[in-house]
């Protein structure tokens, strides 16, 4: 756990470990229109995006303070024309460089260039196991076929592949087929992650919330598949926390393992942190990453356990889930320092369960698409 350190003449600070991972949201531009998009409701415009030089400076700073994994994300990072150049700079800084992409905007030539630039790994999203469902969820016709081509080009270039399968009520019953597809595409790893109900996904709760039966079925399926496919594909799984008993260890603890840089250079403790109105975020245009990580007010807001309500501070699970998700507490309890309402000890848990069950049984299948 974090240690309290008193520094004479300065306000009390929490000694934080160095960050392990950085998510670089290179742009908010994206050709897809997923109804659970995790980017903020207000997107950053292209004219405010960091320049190539600014990103390169941030990558070097990240490596120097201990970041090991760099995730190039978005929006769709392939929308940045300088993606190959940025990848090259990140690899030269010694960062393990991972591209998180929908695949749209990548050509075979560009994948070869990324491989030559030192890209370590590609994470390719799929929205379903059939073109009909996948293209309807992503709101992009022809998307599925393009993704299959991107996976084949990735394989041909020798870059290891992870398939990202975001799951929800309307595609969870295809989980087995999505896993089979990942294996067929030569993926070494699959991330099966249930939609998190923040931001845009919250507008589509009725169309997306899985039923409790789906949740239990998915848990059992993953446990079985992990055994059956051990040594062939690694399965990372995030279940539907609204049906779980305890909150997720969001971000591995606030300000503890990772940071997120927005297209315009704001540095966030998690990608949804801007939904907490009391927080103020520093920008890489004004301060170094080191100053922001160790001294920034947003990063220190929920470190350690001083901020926790007594219910959490006295709970032995605080070293397992670090108090859960602050953005979820903000959204559902109206207070970012409240107990995550997913926790069965939260006074709000019964209401959350009722709402999740009600939404999961809704007949609504139409999506409100992002940006359409």
């Amino acid at each position, binding site marked *: 756990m974090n240690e309290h350190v008193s520094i004479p003449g300065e306000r009390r600070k929490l000694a934080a470990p*160095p960050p*392990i991972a950085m998510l670089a949201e290179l742009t908010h531009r994206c050709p897809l229109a997923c109804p659970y998009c995790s980017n903020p409701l207000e997107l950053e415009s292209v004219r405010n995006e960091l320049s190539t030089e600014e990103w390169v400076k941030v990558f070097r700073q990240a490596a120097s303070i201990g970041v*090991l*994994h760099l995730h190039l994300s978005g929006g769709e990072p392939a929308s940045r024309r300088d993606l190959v150049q940025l990848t090259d700079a990140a690899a030269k800084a010694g960062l*393990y460089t*991972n591209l998180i992409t929908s695949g749209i905007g990548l050509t075979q030539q560009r994948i070869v260039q990324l491989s030559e630039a030192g890209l*370590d790994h590609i994470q390719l999203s799929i929205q379903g196991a059939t073109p009909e469902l996948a293209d309807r969820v992503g709101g992009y016709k022809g998307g599925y076929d393009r993704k299959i081509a991107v996976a084949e080009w990735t394989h041909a270039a020798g870059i*290891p592949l992870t398939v990202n399968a975001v799951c929800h009520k309307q595609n969870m019953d295809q989980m087995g087929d999505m896993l089979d597809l990942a294996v067929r595409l030569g993926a070494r790893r699959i991330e099966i992650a249930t939609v998190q109900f923040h931001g845009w996904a919250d507008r589509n709760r009725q169309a997306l919330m899985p039923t409790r039966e789906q949740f239990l079925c998915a848990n059992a399926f993953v446990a079985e598949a992990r055994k059956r496919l051990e*040594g062939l594909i690694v399965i990372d799984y995030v279940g539907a926390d609204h049906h779980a008993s305890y909150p997720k260890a969001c971000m591995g603890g606030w300000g503890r393992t990772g940071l997120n840089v927005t297209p315009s250079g704001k540095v966030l403790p998690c990608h949804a942190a801007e939904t907490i109105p009391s927080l103020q975020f520093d920008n890489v245009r004004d301060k170094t990453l080191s100053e922001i990580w160790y001294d920034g007010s947003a990063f220190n807001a929920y470190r350690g356990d001083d901020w926790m309500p007594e219910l959490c501070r006295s709970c032995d699970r605080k070293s397992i889930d670090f108090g859960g998700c602050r953005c979820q507490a903000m959204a559902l309890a109206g207070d970012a320092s409240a107990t995550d309402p997913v926790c069965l000890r939260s006074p709000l848990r019964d209401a959350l369960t009722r709402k999740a069950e009600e939404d999961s049984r809704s007949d609504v299948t139409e999506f409100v698409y992002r940006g359409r």
Partner: protein
Amino acid sequence: MTNPIATPVDGNTVVKLARGVRLQNDPVRGQAVLLAPERALALDEIAVAIVTELDGERSLDTIADIFAARFDAPKQQILSDMVTFVGEFSKRRMLEFRS
């Protein structure tokens, strides 16, 4: 190189780190780390010594001979430890096997 499910690991096994898996010095934390997709494993000196020798050319048996001489330790014990270690990495999909 192929990766069938549950490739048996024994003295004849020949492996190297798969692409996308690499050993790196981490000066900020003062340790060696094995980096893989979404994974960073801190390795001790013995693990570093093993990983460094996995070259996709020589068998675990051959490498165990080298360690036995270098550390003046019983070869069978070394080989048995290496088989366990390599088996764990294989389950995590971090290795390429020579068929």
